[in-house]
């Protein structure tokens, strides 16, 4: 089942008099349960493509359909609701809310979605347990290591059961051990919950775990390979 369809998408920026084609005619699709990475050199359009898929940015050409929604047809306020309901984001710099505890951060989107308190609490505990941080539920981000913060970010992204997770360089700020732990967790969630993960990364450790590697150069897809891990 296709979760994301990208049809001949362009994203062009006009920087003074120079036209920059950050995404240049990309056509891709992602199936439910994909564990895909988008790789490529800096400036190849990885993050731009992720922003387009997540509805944070609008293409200047082409069409993106996510979970049945044509993103170009959604108004800005509908795009925000779309993101809340269908997309989970994991950012390079964790981006947790510093004044909230780990469990409050995880439960934040659930509260935006008006989940009942008990249900919210149960789901929060479930997700913190899934990322191995049950015992740190009362800790604030400043009391957690980088790896732990990123695990909380993953739990937050997954809590509301989105269609897929977009992770932009999620391991870039982590040490090897923390990165491996995080990837173990994401692989397990992908397997157990059939959660679709789409990464943009330079990290070889992420590429090694991916089942699909898409390479971008100058905003174009230059390769799209399936990888079998035995």
């Amino acid at each position, binding site marked *: 089942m296709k979760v994301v369809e990208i049809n001949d998408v362009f994203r062009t920026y006009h920087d003074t008099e120079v036209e920059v084609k950050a995404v240049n005619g990309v056509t891709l699709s992602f199936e439910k349960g994909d564990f895909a990475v988008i790789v490529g050199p800096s400036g190849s359009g990885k993050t731009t493509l992720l922003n387009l898929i997540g509805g944070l940015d609008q293409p200047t050409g082409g069409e993106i359909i996510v979970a049945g929604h044509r993103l170009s047809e959604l108004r800005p306020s509908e795009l*925000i609701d779309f*993101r809340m309901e269908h997309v989970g984001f994991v950012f390079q710099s964790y981006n947790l809310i*510093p004044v909230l505890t780990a469990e409050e951060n995880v*439960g934040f989107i659930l509260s*935006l979605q008006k989940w009942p308190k008990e249900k919210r609490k149960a789901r929060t505990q479930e997700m913190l347990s899934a990322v191995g941080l049950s015992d740190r539920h009362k800790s604030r981000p400043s009391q957690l290591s980088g790896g732990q913060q990123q695990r909380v970010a993953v739990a937050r992204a997954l809590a509301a059961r989105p269609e897929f997770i977009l992770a932009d360089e999620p391991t870039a700020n982590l040490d090897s051990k923390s990165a491996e732990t995080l990837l173990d967790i994401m692989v397990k969630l992908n397997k157990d919950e059939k959660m679709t993960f789409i990464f943009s990364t330079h990290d070889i450790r992420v590429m090694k775990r991916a089942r699909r590697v898409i390479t971008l150069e100058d905003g174009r897809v230059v390769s799209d390979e399936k990888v079998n891990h035995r």
Partner: protein
Amino acid sequence: MITSIAWKNVWRNKTRSLTVIAAVTVGVFAGVFAMAAINSSIVQRIDAAVNEELAHIQVNHKEFRSSSDIQNVIQDPSTVISVLEKTPGVTDITGRVIVAGIASTSAGSAGVEITGIDIQKELEMFTLSQRLITGTGSYFGADTKLNSAFIGEKLAKELYIIRYILTPEAFQSLESKGVATSVIEKLKPLEGERFTTEKKLTAAYTGLLSPREIKMYGMNIKEAAWSYREGSRIILTFLDVNGHQTGGAFRISGIFRTNNDLFESMSLFVPEDELRRLTGLEEGHYHRVIARLEDDDLTNSVTPVVREALPGLEVMSWKEIQTDLAMITDYINQIYAIFMVIILAALAFGIVNTMLMSVLERTRELGMLSAIGMNRRRIFVMIMLESIFLSTVGGFAGMAVSAVVIAITGHTGINLSKYSEGMEAFGYSAHLFPTIGADFFIILTVLIVITGILSAIYPARKALQLNPVEALRGE
């Protein structure tokens, strides 16, 4: 959750938030306390005007107030009294006989308004008797062969009935009030000397004391030297109903002290019967009939009713007589509100600045919140709540401090005697007992919340202008 985050955000940068909160606290306290002090002055002035000088409603002969002619009496006072008795809200009524005259002693004289009163009735209706200066006698209680007069301190001074003498008792009084021994020693050369006016006493000790000592102890010295010989006599001269000059000797039964210099220097009260006898005014004829109401708030509604019922007479409320005071009373809440709006507007700039800093340093976080699905309305509400929390915490702290200080000073009072001459010349007390109504705090709470909301608009708009992609890329 939004409320909780907003509250926690306020305390992210404690120093910055506490600085703004402290500024709001001090601003609100300063505003509220200043208004409570002003309010007390006005409340005391109104209280004095109604309870000591004017009553709520006065009925006069149409020409009396402009001419003060003794012939301008109310022709049918029984009708006036009957109308007032039947008017709902009126509680007490009495008549007054009023003549213009001259009060004199061997040392001085002054123009006065001599008011003949029903002593018992006035005692029930007014509180002027409570203004008696201790040691000067009583409110018409003296059993003397001569007629009694109850006069103001200012008039007594003008007639030189009050003098200033530094007696041994005066020195003892100074000692008990903690006046430095060195100062008392310096004043010794003045012992026993009589000064006919306060000015002369001041001139005498100014040559003996340093400016600092005068500033510290001047008021104590005047109070200690204040001297009155009980039972002093004055001569009152005025015209009778036939236009012939007449008068009589009156013994001072007591001296009153109010906050109104003009009232004190002009008003002199004598028993109504004696004034009738001396002027030849018929029994039952009055120049003025005055009435008190159940509540001051009834003044505006009852006065027109009485006026309509008594078309041939001049019917005036105290507000129409003291128009300046009435205007202040009627617009006091608006005046307070404008005053507070000015203070809060100044504080709003501090809040806007703080909120703007807070928003700009959270660019990435706000971008993230927008990215994960927090819509514009929620972000706006969050920023708005942060600003409201900042202003209300400071506002409530300011109000709490004000309430405590007002409660204390409302009990102990604030003595502004050093500046009293200026204030009392306009009828305002120099001893303030700050007070302010609970309704003012309600208005203030609303104003503070509005300040918080208005202060948040610009920073919140800035937050909403953030593009999540650019905001996330920002750091």
